[in-house]
């Protein structure tokens, strides 16, 4: 362990025992987070990105879950920490925002009370003072007429306003880390732009480190400085955002980048796709997890590559693929832009 980084995750493994077998949701994930930076975690459903962020919060406490590995937050180990230790950290030092604010808020309490309750859970402060702080926070996240709105119930808020309440709640105890799990997926684009802008501003102002879980590369580019790409419970590529967009190394990343229609480019006839479908985490393949869908797979892919291949001159940039850097740079160009070449004989 070291005290260098704010948050350090080492070989984290989370699995769930189910009737059908063991689901390996997070399968050996290691990364770090520094104070004040914004890290994006990109992946599709079943990539383990949500299971990972819930574990960081100490929220995966199901009886069928097994954890391995270490998570250090400011030097404290979180995996296996006592519930009382976690209670001091969770919500106060590491806060979280979820995709669906309606189910994260209690429908029968006024939103002001809910924010105040959160403050009082972590600080010795009078009920009245906590109420005032709640209103200040609501004003700060852009809720108009906060004093009045604090007395309203969650159902009286629009989706965007509810997410603002969640942000106010997350920032109420001056956290060091904010984990936002698809915070704007349920929102309209104009509201999404507002919320992302405000979140970024608040984090920058108070030096909060952000872990943003998303599937949208547009959001990654506009918010984050570094990114992790996850596939089937593993990190397949990690890089600064610039490196990820300019020089993506893993075939899965190419596929993701290529398969999204883009507003800033001329319209193409056909979208490059990733063949096949997202894998089951129940008894995952022993080979490279992406090999069954990868058109560039070869003999060596029988063995899982380590997340170790460093791109020369890019110290942050690592990926999990046996291909050489030169091969990758040649193979990823499809019709003049980055994408995954079509595989022959794909069936669904």
């Amino acid at each position: 362990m070291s005290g260098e980084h704010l948050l350090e995750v080492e070989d984290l493994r989370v699995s769930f025992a189910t009737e059908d077998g063991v689901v390996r949701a997070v399968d050996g994930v290691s990364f770090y987070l520094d104070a004040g930076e914004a890290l994006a975690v990109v992946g599709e459903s079943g990539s383990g990105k949500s299971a990972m962020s819930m574990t960081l919060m100490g929220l995966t406490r199901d009886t069928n879950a097994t954890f391995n590995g270490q998570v250090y937050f400011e030097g404290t180990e979180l995996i296996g920490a006592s519930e009382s230790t976690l209670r001091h950290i969770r919500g106060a030092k590491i806060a979280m925002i979820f995709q669906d604010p309606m189910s994260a808020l209690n429908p029968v309490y006024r939103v002001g009370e809910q924010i105040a309750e959160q403050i009082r859970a972590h600080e010795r402060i009078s009920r009245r003072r906590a109420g005032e702080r709640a209103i200040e926070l609501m004003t700060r996240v852009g809720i108009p007429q906060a004093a009045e709105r604090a007395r309203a119930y969650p159902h009286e808020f629009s989706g965007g306003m509810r997410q603002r309440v969640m942000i106010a709640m997350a920032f109420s105890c001056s956290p060091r880390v904010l984990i936002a799990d698809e915070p704007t997926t349920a929102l309209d684009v104009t509201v999404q732009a507002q919320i992302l802008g405000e979140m970024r501003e608040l984090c920058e102002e108070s030096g909060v480190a952000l872990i943003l879980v998303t599937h949208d590369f547009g959001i990654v580019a506009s918010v984050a400085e570094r990114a992790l790409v996850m596939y089937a419970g593993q990190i397949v590529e990690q890089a600064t955002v610039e490196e990820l967009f300019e020089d993506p190394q893993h075939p899965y990343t190419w596929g993701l980048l290529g398969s999204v229609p883009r507003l800033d480019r001329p319209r193409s006839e056909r979208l490059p796709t990733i063949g096949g479908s997202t894998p089951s985490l129940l008894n995952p393949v022993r080979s490279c997890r992406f090999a069954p869908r990868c058109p560039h797979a070869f003999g060596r892919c029988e063995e899982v590559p380590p997340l170790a291949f460093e791109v020369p001159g890019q110290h942050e940039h690592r990926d999990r693929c046996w291909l050489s850097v030169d091969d990758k740079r040649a193979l990823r160009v499809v019709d003049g832009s980055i994408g995954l070449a079509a595989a022959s004989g794909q069936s669904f």
Partner: protein
Amino acid sequence: MDTEELSGSPSLLEVSHLRHYFPVKRGVLIDRIVAHVQAVDDVSFVIPERETLGLVGESGCGKSTLARVLLGLLSPTAGTVRFRGEDVRFGGRNAQVLRREIQMVFQDPQGSLNPRKRVGQIVATGLRLRGVPRKERESRVRILLSEVGLNPEHINRFPHEFSGGQRQRVGVARALAVQPSLIVLDEPVSALDVSIRAQVINLLSDLQREFEIAYLFVAHDLAVVRHVSDRIAVMYLGKLVEISPSEELYFKPVHPYTATLLAAVPIPDVHQERKPIAVKGEPPSPLKPPPGCRFHPRCSRATQLCREVEPPLVAYPGDHLAACHHPLNVDEGEVTRALRSPLSPLSAGETMPEVGTQE
């Protein structure tokens, strides 16, 4: 109908001055209608044969209600829908005919397939209604399944045995079974993962070419809509604010709301400048829509005129229609040549946009 002159070629579907209001009821024992949600308020457009019309807008703008009215799942409060030139009477006998011609694919592939039926039965229902003899049905279902990229061997599987993307393919096969000429796709890919989304989008465009179907593609993802559509209609609070050929809309949006929507889409490019937040606030309630132009409370270009007079849809060169008093991206010549479109809402004012009223 004057809409025909506009489109040139005979249109598959003509919607004129369509309204759908949802009553808001209050009261114990006796319900009183206290207000109306103006979900779709005087919307007119045409869909030519074999074309894709994209319909975009934020949640609550009425795009799904509009789709449901076209399918006869809701009856319109006012206005007419003509299919191949014939008036569609909702709820009457020819609603049956209409259902055969217009099919729908829903957003949630899980919720829209009967979990207790095998996919073979689900797809065959359409064939039965079309009068395909029992003996032929199975082989036709197999052909349909392979058309949509599914393994025909899976004919006896249940919906839960498929992944999300595959279920959406079943939904498409079911729609194709009745050989429709128009398929309404309501957010068909937004529930799917990014890598699967592209597969389904490609499938839809292949099928369109092969079966010569027109699509009404309802979605909120502007990049996806641009990819699939020939023309795009933008809705805001129950009104159509802009309708134009797809590329034109992206390069020169005329209505400030369209420009706002486009600017709000995050672009996956690190060198793209981080734009300031384009628009403040959220759409107001369709219960009490603002007078005049419905976008004026959020619009940076709004003037007294916008607060009072509802702008008509104005036809600019290039088949580009927009309802704005202070249009963007049009020059003096284009404004002087512009005409009031017959697709304008009946309540719209006569005021034509002026040149240089702003900026």
